[in-house]
């Protein structure tokens, strides 16, 4: 099995370094290695990750919004045009026609078909 923490040999450093000197110097450098960042590093990392994640979600939403808005606007215009074309003679205003709103009169509002639905009205008045 391979040693996970291989030690040093004089071959690693050239033949002019005796192994005792290598070991002493290696140990010294290893012992003097930095042991960590300033206290609170974990919290700082987690808050950075969170803000990065929030920014990513925001950017993704913005990207989708920008992609969807032109399609939605085009679909709305098409539907409004279709409605207007079908109801231009029966509707009161252009807006009513675009929104497919039928002309409303007092008599029409109290018609059985309007109150109970066309099926019921048709069965009662053959």
């Amino acid at each position, binding site marked *: 099995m391979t040693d996970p*923490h*291989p030690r040093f040999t004089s*071959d*690693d*450093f*050239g033949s002019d*370094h005796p192994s005792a*000197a*290598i070991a*002493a*110097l*290696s*140990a*010294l*450098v*290893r*012992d*003097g*290695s*930095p*042991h*960590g*960042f*300033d206290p609170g*590093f*974990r919290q*700082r*990392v*987690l808050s*950075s*990750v*969170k803000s*990065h994640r929030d920014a990513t979600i925001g950017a993704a939403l913005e990207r989708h919004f920008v992609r969807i808005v032109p399609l939605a606007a085009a679909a709305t215009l098409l539907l409004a045009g279709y409605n207007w074309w079908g109801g231009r003679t029966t509707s009161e205003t252009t807006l009513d026609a675009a929104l497919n709103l039928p002309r409303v009169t007092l008599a029409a509002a109290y018609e059985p078909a309007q109150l109970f639905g066309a099926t019921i009205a048709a069965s009662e008045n053959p």
Partner: protein
Amino acid sequence: MIAFASDAELLALARAGDDRAFGVLVDRYETAVAATVIGMLGRGDEAEDVGQETFIRFHRALHNFRGDSSLKTYLVHIAMNLSINALRRRRRALLRFVDEDDAVDVAPEPRVGPAGEVDAKELQAVVQDAVARLGAKHRAVVVLRLFHEYSTRETAQILGVPEGTVLSRLSRAMKELETQLAPYVQAGAALPETIR
């Protein structure tokens, strides 16, 4: 207890969005990342930023980590690449106000305690200062080979250079370190347990 969970368990939890599990991984590998980043850049805001960036990139790549190498090696690899990039940026920004070939100062005589021990903080500062005086390529080899005790092959893989290059850089770096740290090597027989 989540603090005692294995890396694989913590990774699975972190992938599912558990920030506590990711926090435990940060705690577990902070020392390895700090040794790499501070060893390469020295202490300061830049090292802290690169340390954070290392873990942010790791978090972003959680789903891509396949476990081909150990988690420590994976993080050290990211930290080393980011440190080298930071050194390049620093180099471009400073345009070398200081001549790299300036004469190397030898470390002062160490303050040795009654039992022959060397002050741990003083030793850390002196070693980090000596490593910081090395050129970036030699420093990278010292950080991986001596701080982390990676093998020559692993060091070569992380740095993307042939093994022979690692050996020659290490040999040259050791000669420089030997010159700078000679007084401490002699006093090092009684290093305190706290820094072992």
